[in-house]
């Protein structure tokens, strides 16, 4: 294509995914599908007690069982660990971080590993695991976050003398006015249920030993690079000896953003045995052994003038860490720490987080991580404040929105761009609000069994993790940059290597769109490689809606370098100055001589042949860029939920869900819509269905898919989506993150709708999830 022809951009088009075909035809490369010759299968023997000392482990019978290769307890493997399991985010200097190892002799949550069995088949390993005799001395367990810090409660780690992990504060007392002196003060208390992520592919690892003391770990992980670094550190290996491959990965949502005991066990045992070691999690095991999310108790206060001007927000949060600190457990609340004022301009800002140990499965990042917790309490309390003030709930929101961008928030960070008013206006266009209000009034007047509720959530969030300097300032151990390499092969094909590690997001398609536009080539000429540390040497992986606003932007800067080098080659070959060349659509044309042109692909061949390059230029056309974003990414928007509540049974059913999101420029609208669909579904199910719960002894009561409701298609409606577009000024693509917006926005919209449906009956509060029993009880209590 010549430099002057019009070319239709791939970016912005609903390009169908290149990832699909092999997944649709049963040729996925999920870890459990791999079966190298000689593989040994690992089963972890887990504590049935939430808190117990292991007094003996008798492995004699198991060792004698058919097909058994090895049976090992914590003591047998103690020498294999050169460091405790890693936590990368010591949020305060004095944070308590009791060490834990892949196997333990004091179980601190139900499911803590105490022994491993390795056998020639998975079935034989399971049979033998039944023969491992473990004696336990049961200890008192602390389970309930709400009371865990009270005197006399059992201690998850008695040596610490407390269940408190840390206290972290952020106060910006901008105006000096005391919150209690405000004209109207509304305080509410909320519980964020414990959530179990349930990626449909359970975790799996396969460690294959090499000939030179090296190990390749195939892992269902979101973080091959971070896992390589930390597995090497924990096992005392050189990073050069650990290769991590993330093949097809069946969803993550944060649950595969971790360094797990089984990852380390598989590597250690593959080295010991000299055979491939494979472990595949069962779903019920996943409920115990894979991180949980949320479990926050929050007291949230908004203070305002009578005219509705909000002056203060204050959050006092207790966050359950679980029994140990996993990779970023203590930092999860901090990921929401700067957005406890939501999209509203609130000058006085005060947040305090207390991390609390309990004898429960460790918590860590689950989709949204810290931000759904913030948005939920803000949006619920906005409705409560509107009630208190006698102001319409949407008017209150409009009045307090940030309206000028960039906007510096009360918390101190700066929102790059947005238009919250436009999002809300567009939402109302789709909603047909007046008709719904009329229908609601009709049902209220007639005393209908099924009442109608409309709920709103106007939100912003910070994602795109993250500027490395800020991460350093808040004591995260690593940076937040991302790397991309673009390499022309001699024939003009383009290889892209990215440090992001997709597990359903469609990076192969979207990254090809970006690069094909930059280089003016066909989409099919671009190959995207990822998820293998021997191919992608440096990267910080996929989480926190970072892949596009950090990794995608890195592609642009790599392309810029490629084009710069190509320009020098073309200038040399055409015997003109580089300044005399105009670049467009993959072609350089000499200014004023439009028929004198040369493509980047031709320059790539010239760079490969290297017969005639400028003096001193290295052969080859390839460039690497490492991009460290100057700011977080700031999506926002307005969501509405319409629910029908059966006032006789308490059943709340979602009738409509409308999401207006502003995620900046969109690369692939198919993929963006898909991310929003999935995100809002997880928020909806937080509001209505999902809650992980323990009994007093620390037994997980919701320990499988039968007792923990992951909604099916039958529980959900179709969704209505639209977008406003405020390009990010901080990157050349104008993009923002989108992976978590739906989850962040949805739960409060749904709960506000449920409350709206029954508020005329006197119901003031329903905690999540709004199960039929909770709704029914709330109605009965309001009547009484």
């Amino acid at each position: 294509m010549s430099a002057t022809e019009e070319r239709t951009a791939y970016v912005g088009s609903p390009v169908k995914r290149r990832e699909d075909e092999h997944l649709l035809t049963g040729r996925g490369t999920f870890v459990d599908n791999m079966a190298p010759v000689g593989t040994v299968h690992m089963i972890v023997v887990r504590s049935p007690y939430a808190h117990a000392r292991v007094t003996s482990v008798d492995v004699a019978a198991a060792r004698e069982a058919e097909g058994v290769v090895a049976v090992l307890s914590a003591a047998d493997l103690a020498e294999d660990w050169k460091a405790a399991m890693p936590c990368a985010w010591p949020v305060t200097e004095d944070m308590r971080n009791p060490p834990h190892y892949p196997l333990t002799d004091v179980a601190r949550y139900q499911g803590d590993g105490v022994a491993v069995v390795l056998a020639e088949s998975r079935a034989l390993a399971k049979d033998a695991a039944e023969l491992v005799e473990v004696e336990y001395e049961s200890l008192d367990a602390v389970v309930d976050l709400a009371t865990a810090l009270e005197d006399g409660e059992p201690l998850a780690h008695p040596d610490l003398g407390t269940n408190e992990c840390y206290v972290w504060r952020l106060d910006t007392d901008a105006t000096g006015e005391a919150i209690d002196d405000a004209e109207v003060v509304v305080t509410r208390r909320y519980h964020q249920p414990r959530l179990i992520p349930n990626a449909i592919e359970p975790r799996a690892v396969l460690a294959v030993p090499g000939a030179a003391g090296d190990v390749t770990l195939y892992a269902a992980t979101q973080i091959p690079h971070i896992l390589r670094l930390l597995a090497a550190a924990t096992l005392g290996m050189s990073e050069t000896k650990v290769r991590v491959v993330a093949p097809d990965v069946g969803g993550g949502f944060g649950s595969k953003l971790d360094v797990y005991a089984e990852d380390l066990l598989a590597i250690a045992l593959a080295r010991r045995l000299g055979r491939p070691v494979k472990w595949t999690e069962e779903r019920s095991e996943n409920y115990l052994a894979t991180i949980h999310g949320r479990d926050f108790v929050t007291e949230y206060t908004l203070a305002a003038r009578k005219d509705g001007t909000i002056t203060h927000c204050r959050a006092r949060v207790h966050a359950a860490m679980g029994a140990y600190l996993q990779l970023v457990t203590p930092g999860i609340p901090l990921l929401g720490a700067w957005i406890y004022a939501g999209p509203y301009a609130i000058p006085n800002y005060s947040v305090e987080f207390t991390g609390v140990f309990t004898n429960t499965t460790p918590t860590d990042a689950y989709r949204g991580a810290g931000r759904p917790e913030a948005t939920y309490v803000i949006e619920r309390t906005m409705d409560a404040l509107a009630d208190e003030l006698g102001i319409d709930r949407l008017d209150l929101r409009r009045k307090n929105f940030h309206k000028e961008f960039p906007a510096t928030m009360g918390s101190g960070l700066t929102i790059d761009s947005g238009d919250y008013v436009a999002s809300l206006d567009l939402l109302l266009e789709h909603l047909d609000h007046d008709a719904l209000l009329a229908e609601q009034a009709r049902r209220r007047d007639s005393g209908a069994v099924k009442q109608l509720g409309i709920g709103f959530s106007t939100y912003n969030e910070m994602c795109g993790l993250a500027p490395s300097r800020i991460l350093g300032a808040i004591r995260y151990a690593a940076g937040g940059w991302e790397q991309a390499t673009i390499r022309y092969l001699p024939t003009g094909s383009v290889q892209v290597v990215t440090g992001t590690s997709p597990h359903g997001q469609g990076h192969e398609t979207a990254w090809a769109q970006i690069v094909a536009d930059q280089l003016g080539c066909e989409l099919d000429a671009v190959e995207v490689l990822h998820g293998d540390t021997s191919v992608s040497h440096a990267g910080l992986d996929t989480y926190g809606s970072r892949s596009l606003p950090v990794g995608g932007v890195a592609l642009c800067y790599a392309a810029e370098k490629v084009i710069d080098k190509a320009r020098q080659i073309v200038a040399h070959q055409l015997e003109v100055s580089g300044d005399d060349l105009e670049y467009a659509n993959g072609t350089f044309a000499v200014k004023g001589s439009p028929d004198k042109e040369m493509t980047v692909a031709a320059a790539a061949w010239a760079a490969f042949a290297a017969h005639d390059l400028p003096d001193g230029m290295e052969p080859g056309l390839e460039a690497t860029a490492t991009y460290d974003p100057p700011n977080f990414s700031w999506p926002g928007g307005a969501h509405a939920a319409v629910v029908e509540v059966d006032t006789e049974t308490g059943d709340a059913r979602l009738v409509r869900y409308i999401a207006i999101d502003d995620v900046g420029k969109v690369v692939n609208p198919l993929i963006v819509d898909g991310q929003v669909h999935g995100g809002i579904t997880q928020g909806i199910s937080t509001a209505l269905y999902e809650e992980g719960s323990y009994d007093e002894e620390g037994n997980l009561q919701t320990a499988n898919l039968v007792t923990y409701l992951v909604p099916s298609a039958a529980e959900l409606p179709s969704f209505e989506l639209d977008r406003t577009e405020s390009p990010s000024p901080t990157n050349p693509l104008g993009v923002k993150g989108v992976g978590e917006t739906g989850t962040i926005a949805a739960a409060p919209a749904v709960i506000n709708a449920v409350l709206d449906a029954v508020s005329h009956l006197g119901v003031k509060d329903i905690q999540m999830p709004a199960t039929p029993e909770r709704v029914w009880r709330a109605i009965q209590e309001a009547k009484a």
Partner: protein
Amino acid sequence: MRHVALTVNGVGHELELEPRELLVYVLRDRLRLTGTNVGCDTSSCGACTVLVDGESVKSCTMLGVQADGTEITTIEGLATDGELHPVQQAFHDHHALQCGYCTPGMVMAAVSLIDHGQATSEAAIREGLEGNLCRCTGYHNIVVAVQAAASAS
């Protein structure tokens, strides 16, 4: 060990099976047809759905020995002559998969629903797919894809 004869994707197999072996592991481990995934251990998720004599079955709910004499279709047997089955094509066209782990089971369940003439409305499709869980898509595009495939069939 029991002798079992079954046909999978048109190919006959004679196997010696332990009575306890689940059909899904027979497919995955014995026949190396790893397209059929395992997502749970309570027959809740439907990732392992296959067609047994034309009926949609969660292959973790059936023993291999119970499949003696049956004809089974798995996700690997759906495309013909390199052409995607209309349901596979519709999933691609409508972005009805993200991570792809539930997809084989979801596609097989959808094929069965359409073949039985039960994909007659959005509500019917949602009810009909109740036994198959997806954590990525929120089902929106799956329902769109199944509607499209059903109306084309």
